[in-house]
């Protein structure tokens, strides 16, 4: 038995004896604070209502996910860990944090309670607050992973209509949907707008014998469906030279699978986030897409054919 435990109990009993009744003294303070907090809460709810972004779109890989602000520090902290370590840190860091928090009363055990009498723990607490604040601030300031691009509203509307009309009952996009009609991400992007328009108005007129029903669409609906179809590109094949072009020009800074440098981002899954057109433009001159990019422009360094080839190669990575 710790000698000061008994001592504390006795001293506390005395202090309690001399204290004031919970009701009304403590309750009064609690209620005042509660009313104040409620007022602020109502004001915020009224003047700054909760927002609602567009409907979840699993195919929109350009979206920049951001966590709730109080998780931001964690995401920022993870950036200090390169590549494979990040995965471990993502679990280890919060895990250790929680463990330390639970351990506090068992590590700091003496009778001293005043913050000035416990410089180590007070310092640790202040450092924790400062670290949280600094990381959160850095997180707020840090550039988005995907440069914001205007999503074409016509394409988005077309995609919604596609879902609403249950086109996926017969057609596949991205491997999901039925097999009665053709897989649209493979073929539709290559048709002309004119062809698509006529097709949507009357499938039989361009594809005699087509099993697709006439939909009686409004002109506006046809337009957004065409925009959606045109936004899909069939995957184009790259040549055998592409991996070599990458190895010679890019691998010094970029990883692909296990091989490659650390200076630039790992590109192993770039195909899930970027299409060929974006990659091509980026390789030609990064500064047009990301002004502060440290990567050199390759237009002039590589031929247009080589850039096209490497862009096709990269857009297939991770798919």
């Amino acid at each position, binding site marked *: 038995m710790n000698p000061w435990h008994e001592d504390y109990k006795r001293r506390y009993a005395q202090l309690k004896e001399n204290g004031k009744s*919970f009701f009304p003294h403590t309750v009064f303070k609690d209620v005042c*604070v509660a009313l104040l907090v409620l007022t602020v809460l109502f004001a915020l709810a009224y003047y700054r209502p909760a927002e609602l972004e*567009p409907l*979840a779109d699993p195919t929109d890989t350009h979206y920049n996910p951001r966590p709730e602000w109080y998780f931001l520090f964690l995401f920022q902290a993870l950036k200090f860990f390169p590549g494979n370590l990040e995965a471990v840190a993502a*679990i280890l860091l919060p895990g250790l944090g929680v463990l330390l928090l*639970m351990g*506090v009363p068992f590590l700091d055990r003496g009778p001293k309670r005043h913050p000035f*009498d416990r410089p180590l723990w007070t310092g640790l607490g202040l450092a924790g607050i400062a670290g949280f604040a600094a990381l959160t601030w850095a997180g707020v300031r840090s550039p988005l992973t995907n440069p914001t691009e205007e999503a074409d509203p016509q394409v988005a509307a077309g995609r919604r209509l596609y879902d609403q009309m249950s086109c996926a009952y017969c057609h596949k996009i991205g491997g999901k949907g039925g097999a009665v009609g053709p897989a649209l991400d493979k073929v539709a992007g290559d048709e002309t707008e004119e062809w698509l328009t006529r097709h949507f108005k009357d499938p039989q007129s361009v594809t005699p014998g087509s099993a697709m029903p006439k939909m009686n669409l409004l002109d506006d609906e046809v337009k957004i469906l065409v925009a959606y179809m045109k936004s899909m590109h069939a995957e184009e094949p790259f040549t055998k030279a592409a991996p070599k072009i990458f190895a010679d020009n890019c691998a010094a800074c970029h990883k692909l699978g296990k091989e490659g440098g650390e200076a630039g981002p790992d590109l192993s899954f770039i195909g899930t986030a970027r299409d060929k057109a974006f990659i091509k433009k980026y390789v030609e001159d990064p500064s047009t897409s990301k002004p502060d990019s440290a990567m050199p422009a390759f237009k002039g360094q590589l031929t247009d054919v080589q850039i096209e080839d490497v862009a096709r190669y990269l857009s297939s990575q991770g798919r």
Partner: protein
Amino acid sequence: MKDCALAAYSWVCERTGLDQVWTALMERHIPEAKGWVGLLYTLGSATMMIFTVQAVTGFLLATNYVPSPDHAYDSVRYIDAAVLFGRVVRGLHHWGASFMVVFAVLHMLRVYFMGSYKYPREATWLAGVGLLLLVLGFSFTGYLLPWDQKAYWATVVGTTIAGQTPVVGAWIANILRGTDGMGAPTLSRFYALHVLALPALTAGLIGVHLFLVVWHGISEPPKRSPGKVP
């Protein structure tokens, strides 16, 4: 008339012990904490009040919300646009979520810097850490429910991180998502956690936490220890 009320009162007291419960809970003494320091002791009850707000507004939202990918988004839009005071109720629940985290942490900081977790209040602290984790669990599961872009992609990131845990990661991610990608099973799981499991666990743990607070008595404001004690 007065006799009658008195008789009713003593009837209730005799069957429920109301008067003794009142004395034990409401007339227990608290060591005096003056001024600003006294205000710091209100943070715990403020957290509890916000939890009540979340429970009430959450109930109201649940009366119109539909936890399926086909209808979740539209039901939230409906709450915003058409339900009486729906926008305010959703606003309260939204801000209340942040407030809950902020006040739980502020309360924890007051306990931390005052060393109130020391003997005999270690278990109270542990229950507190459990509550903090539950609050974060609410935030993680609630974020997905509107099924908008932010909801969807933040949860993709969150469950992917969970999936990176060594050894059991894939298993955890699978339990959370319930499907290969994310879809209807993910949403129903998050919803069930958010409105059934977490509230029950939290209410229970708050009960334990408060019982311990009353049992040990609230700590007195710390004083500087006198000079150097050898």
